[in-house]
C-alpha cells in the first residue's frame, strides 16, 4: 500500500496529539515543530467524504498525492516525540524477547499480552494506551512492568509505538527501539523530519477550482510523480480517447 504525505500526516497528527495529551508537546512547542495536532482552520465545505461504495474522488487538474519518501524529505517540519528510549539500566538480552526477572521463577508472560488472553493484538494496544494516559496522574511506577513493553525503565510513547509496530508485524521484537536504526525504518521518524501535513492546495483532496480537461483540445504535457522514485517525469499529452474499441465481451 502506498505511503503518501497524507498518510504520514495522519500518523504524525495522532502522535502529536498523544504527546500533547501527555504534556510532552505543548501547543507552543508543537508550533515550533510546526506540528498540526489540531484542525484550527476547519472548513466543512472543503471536506471530501469518500462514498461508502463509490470510487475514490479525484479532479483531473489537481496533482496526484505525492508519495512519501522519508529519505528525500529535507525539511524538518515535524518532530514527533517518541524517539529512542533512555539507556538501559538493567541487563537483559533483547533477543530473548522477554525479560528474565532478576530473581524469582522465569516468567511465562508473553510480553505485550496485557489482557492475558493469550494473544498480542489491538486489544492490548487499547489497554496500553489507556494505562499510558492514566499513568500521568496515578503515581504508579511502571518501570519494567508489563506495560513497559520495551523494558526501558519507563512507560512512554516508545512503548505504544513498539507494541503498535510489533502487532503490525513491522518488528519481530518489542525491544525494537533498543536497536533502533532509522535507515531501516520506513515509517516517518522524528529525527528525519516526518512531513507535518500535505499542502492542502496541492493535493487531490482539496476541492480547488478545476478546469475540464478535454483530451481533444489539450496541448499541455502532464507531470506525473513516479511512484518508484522521487523524480518527476514529463509525459506527452494523453492519447485521444477512442470509444467503441473492439469489445472484450463478444
Amino acid at each position, binding site marked *: 500500500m*502506498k505511503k503518501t504525505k497524507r498518510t504520514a500526516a495522519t500518523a504524525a497528527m495522532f502522535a502529536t496529539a498523544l504527546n500533547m495529551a501527555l504534556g510532552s508537546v505543548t501547543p507552543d512547542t508543537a508550533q515550533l515543530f510546526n506540528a498540526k495536532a*489540531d484542525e484550527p482552520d*476547519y472548513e466543512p465545505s472543503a471536506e471530501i467524504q469518500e462514498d461508502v461504495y463509490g*470510487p475514490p474522488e479525484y479532479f483531473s487538474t489537481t496533482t496526484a498525492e505525492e508519495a512519501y519518501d522519508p529519505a528525500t524529505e529535507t525539511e524538518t517540519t515535524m518532530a514527533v516525540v517518541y524517539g529512542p528510549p533512555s539507556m538501559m539500566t538493567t541487563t537483559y538480552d533483547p533477543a530473548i524477547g522477554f525479560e528474565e526477572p532478576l530473581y524469582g521463577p522465569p516468567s511465562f508472560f508473553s510480553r505485550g499480552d496485557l489482557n492475558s488472553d493469550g494473544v498480542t493484538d*489491538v486489544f492490548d494496544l487499547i489497554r496500553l494506551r489507556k494505562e499510558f494516559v492514566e499513568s500521568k496522574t496515578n503515581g504508579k511506577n511502571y518501570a519494567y512492568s508489563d506495560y513497559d513493553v520495551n523494558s526501558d525503565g519507563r512507560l512512554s510513547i516508545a512503548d505504544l509505538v513498539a507494541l503498535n509496530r510489533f502487532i503490525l508485524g513491522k518488528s519481530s521484537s518489542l525491544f525494537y527501539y533498543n536497536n533502533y536504526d532509522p535507515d531501516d525504518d520506513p515509517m516517518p521518524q522524528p529525527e528525519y523530519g516526518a512531513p507535518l501535513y500535505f499542502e492542502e492546495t496541492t493535493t487531490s483532496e482539496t476541492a480547488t477550482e478545476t478546469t*475540464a480537461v478535454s483530451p481533444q483540445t489539450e496541448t499541455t504535457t502532464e507531470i506525473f510523480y513516479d511512484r518508484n522514485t522521487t523524480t518527476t517525469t514529463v509525459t506527452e499529452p494523453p492519447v485521444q480517447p477512442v*470509444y467503441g*474499441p473492439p469489445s*472484450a465481451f463478444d
Partner: protein
Amino acid sequence: MLNVRTKNSNMTKLAEYRESLKTKPQLRNLFLELTLRCNERCLHCGSSCGDVPSDELTVEQYRKFLTEVREDFGVDNKMLCITGGEPLLRKDFFDIMGIANELGFNWGMTSNATLINDEVAKDLKRVGMGTISVSIDGLPETHDAFRRTPGGWERAMKGIESLIKADTFKAVQITTVVTHQNIGQLWELYKIFRDMDIDSWRIINIDPIGRAKLHPELILTKEDYVYMFEFIRTMRIAGEPVTYGCSHYLGLEYEREVRDWYFLCTAGTYIASIMANGDITACLDIERRPEFIQGNILKDRFSEVWNNKFEIFRKNLCDENEKCRSCKEKDFCHGDAYHTWDFDKNEPQVCFKDVLF
C-alpha cells in the same frame, strides 16, 4: 485520541453547514448505475444485482443526459461514479465512458475486476478513468463464498494487478465489506495488501440493506464493531492508507480518526444517482421505494429535478423519531445514514450509541 474539544467544535460547524446544504445543495458526485446485471451474486448486495433483467439506457440517451448535466452544472468539481451491477458487462461501456471523457467529466468506477485484464486496463485509461475501487471481501475461500463466484478472488486480484500495471490511474483502491464471518481475516488481508501497490484500502461494515437483510448472521456484533474501528485506527496511526467509509456517525472518540472527514450523509445534497432505467434518486443504497424516485432523465431535465425536488432527502431524519430527537448527539448524527434508516418504523437500523459512544 485526537483533541475532543476541537472535534466537537468542528462538528458543530459542520452541523451548521449541513443546514445550509439543505437549501443550497451542491452536486458533486453523480452515480450512474449502468446496469443491474452482474457476474457475481454477493450476499450483501444493496441493489440485489445478478443475472437479473435490467432496463438499460442507450448510448445516445447517456450522451443527451451528460450533455445537459454539463450545460447546467459544468464539470468542475464534479465526478461521475460508474457502478452497477458490474459496469463492464455492458458491451457499450467504452462508448458511454468515451462520451463522458470527451465532455470533460472526471470519473471513476466500482468493479469486481473479474473482467479486467491488461487490455481492458488500457481501454479504461483511454476513456479517461481516474479512479477505481475493487471489492475484496476476505481471503480466497471466504471471498468466493460471499460473492458466490468460484475463482472470483483469483480473477479479482489479477484484475487489480492489471490496473496497477497500467500505472496511470489516480487511485486504485480495494474495498472490503466486513462481516461477522470475515472480521478475523483483517490482519491476513493487511499482510496481502501491504505488499501491493494499491493507493488505499477502504474497510466498511456490512449494513442491513438489500440482500444482506436475508443474512442477519453476517451483521457485526458490538465487539466486532469495536475491533474493526480499532483495527482501522491502528492502521492509520501507523501511517497506512486505510479508511472507513462515509456511513454512520461514530461518536467523538472515533470521528475523524478512522477517516479523514466527519460524518455527513450527503445523499441528496452532494450526491445524486441515475438508476439503470433512468430513474433519478439520491443514493443507490437507499431502499428503492417509489417515493424516493424523484424523476426520470428520459422525461425530466436532471437540473430541474435536482433544484426543485429531493426534499425528502434534504431534512433531518432524527426529527422523525422520538428517541433520536432527544439524543444529545442528534446535531452531529442527524439520524445517521439515509441508506440504513428504516422508513417503515422511522428509526435508524444502525446506531452506534452504546456501541462506540
